[in-house]
């Protein structure tokens, strides 16, 4: 059996350290593959590592823990780590979501780990699929204070000596280019000095679909998706000749 992989997202260094140490003790056979300091890194790291279990702080810079969980959908077991008070946490209880209250105490972590182990191999060597928390997360996002995400309306791109203002709605797709992001419009393109993972948190998720770790496409610009072979898909755009590959993680967007 492969080793269980874990991702931790927590913005405070001491809390990060603490959770790491406690996990090493409570779950020695699992391996922490990534420690993220904010929501954007957490989501990007999830796509890169595809861990089995994710420990998410709720209040983080960039994407909140709830938003990261929403993006992960049912692809990993999520445990929230929160300092919200009991009143707010009641909502988690009702939704049967795993959560830990900060500061995390050993006995509570042990319980959570036991539950995760149970979910992962179900006692019969067969793992249970993680729950998709979609509806509950939507509800929590509106119920918890300070969880509303600001939307980006304008992008600033330097073209030569000028700074161009780009209306986000006119973008056909974004493509990651290490520390920059390539922004492709109908008749031109530009480079924005911001990594794609950070741009992503300001985009409307219903309108801009992530189809690959390095690609986000305006759903309105998609003409079709075509199969390359049994496994792979690519997106054909309406006003652009470029074809964009869809990674396996996001293939479900185009399944009928």
């Amino acid at each position, binding site marked *: 059996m492969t080793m269980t992989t874990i991702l931790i997202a927590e913005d405070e260094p001491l809390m990060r350290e*603490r959770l790491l140490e406690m996990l090493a003790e409570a779950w020695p056979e699992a391996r922490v593959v990534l420690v993220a300091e904010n929501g954007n890194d957490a989501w990007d790291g999830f796509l890169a590592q595809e861990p089995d279990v994710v420990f998410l702080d709720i209040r983080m810079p960039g994407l909140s823990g709830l938003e990261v969980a929403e993006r992960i959908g049912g692809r990993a077991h999520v445990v929230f780590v929160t300092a919200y008070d009991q009143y707010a946490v009641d909502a988690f209880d009702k939704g049967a979501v795993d959560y830990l209250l900060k500061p995390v105490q050993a006995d509570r972590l042990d319980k959570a780990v036991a539950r995760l182990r149970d979910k992962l191999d179900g006692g019969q060597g067969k793992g249970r699929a993680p729950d998709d928390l979609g509806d509950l997360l939507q509800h929590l996002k509106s119920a918890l204070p300070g969880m509303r995400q600001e939307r980006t309306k304008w992008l600033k791109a330097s073209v030569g000596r000028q700074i161009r203002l780009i209306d986000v709605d006119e973008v056909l797709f974004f493509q990651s280019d290490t520390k920059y992001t390539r922004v492709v419009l109908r008749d031109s393109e530009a480079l924005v000095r911001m990594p794609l993972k950070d741009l992503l948190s300001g985009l409307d998720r219903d309108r801009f679909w992530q189809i690959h770790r390095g690609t986000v496409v305006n759903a309105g610009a998609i003409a079709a998706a075509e199969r390359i072979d049994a496994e792979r898909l690519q997106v054909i755009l309406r006003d652009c000749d470029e074809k964009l590959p869809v990674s396996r993680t996001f293939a479900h967007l185009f399944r009928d």
Partner: protein
Amino acid sequence: MWRKMANWHRGWEDEFFGVFEQPARAAVAQSGYRRCIARKIAALSPIERHQLYDFSKAHRGWRGYWLLARLLLVFSLGGVLLHVLHPRTGLFASIFTGNMIGLALIIAGFTAWFNYRKLVDQRWKLMRRTFMAGIGSALLVGVVKVWIQDIPTQQVLDELPRFLGLVLGVGLLMLLPQLAVGMLRYRQYEMLTEQLQAEFERERLARELSESQLRLLRAQIEPHFLFNTLGAVQQLAQHGAPRAAVLTANLIAFLRSSMSDMRSEQVSLATEFGLVESYLKVMQVRMGERLRCTLALPSALEAVQVPSMILLTLAENAIKHGIEPSLRGGEVALSARVEDGMLRIRVEDSGVGMSATPGAGTGLDNVRHRLQLTFGAAAGLALQEGDPGLIADITIPYSVPMSA
């Protein structure tokens, strides 16, 4: 017959008191003069209604009639006195006149008591009218005497000044007490209003203060602050890190000074800077390299008094809405200086700035309000976009103290 009268009287009285207790009942009072009176009562201000109610209650039933009888007796005695002083008027005429004047004065006084605002506002108009009416009636009587009673014109003209004097005298006799009562009531009312205003202001100040105390208390026991800080202490202590002791010391300093700050309405700038410093130090241990901070308070300004907790509110906002949501973290800087007779205290952060701060702004409203309550309209709080981040400027009128 007697019982019927008594029943009618009781019914009327009940209705009357019913309206006092619930002015809305005026609408269901019996029609005619009774409803008219009920409406008048309902239209009084609550204070006036209360006074009238107390009066009516004290003189309810036979007590009212007893009072009336005593008054009539006094007026009749006045009439007898008039007869003694001025025997030309008959005894009964004198008693009648005394009662008439007395009752008129009572009614006038009563109306003046409840219509004092109108009375005081229109006192010159009333004087003029009384004067005109006096002259008018004197002339009218003169004309009647000449034309109808055939009294020689010369005689009427001779009597006219005396008659005029009499009429005007009676008029003024009626009007002046009314005005006196009116003025008295007016002054009383103004004093009452002033008193209420002062009470209201005091209450509002107390409320403002307790609101900010409550906010601070909430900030301290806010799960995010306290639990995360305790978690950090626990983590550091587990490894025996000396930083654990430092963090605990800062947390203690923050809790202690905020609790004593909370009890006073004003504190020195040095105290407030100290409070903010302990808060920022706690946050710095927790946030690590993501938070940097500088505090600069010129020693000349240390003793300046400011409303307590306002700087802490701004510093908390800077962390919560500026640095914490920022991917890169940033710096919080506090400074104070005097410029153009104004003390400017600046809380500046290089966080995510105004657009990403969807807070309700109650903390800022509270700061603004308390500044203005303490220093008047010249004091204020202004926010502006930094590059990046947010700059909050507190402005307070300030006169440089003479050096001793």
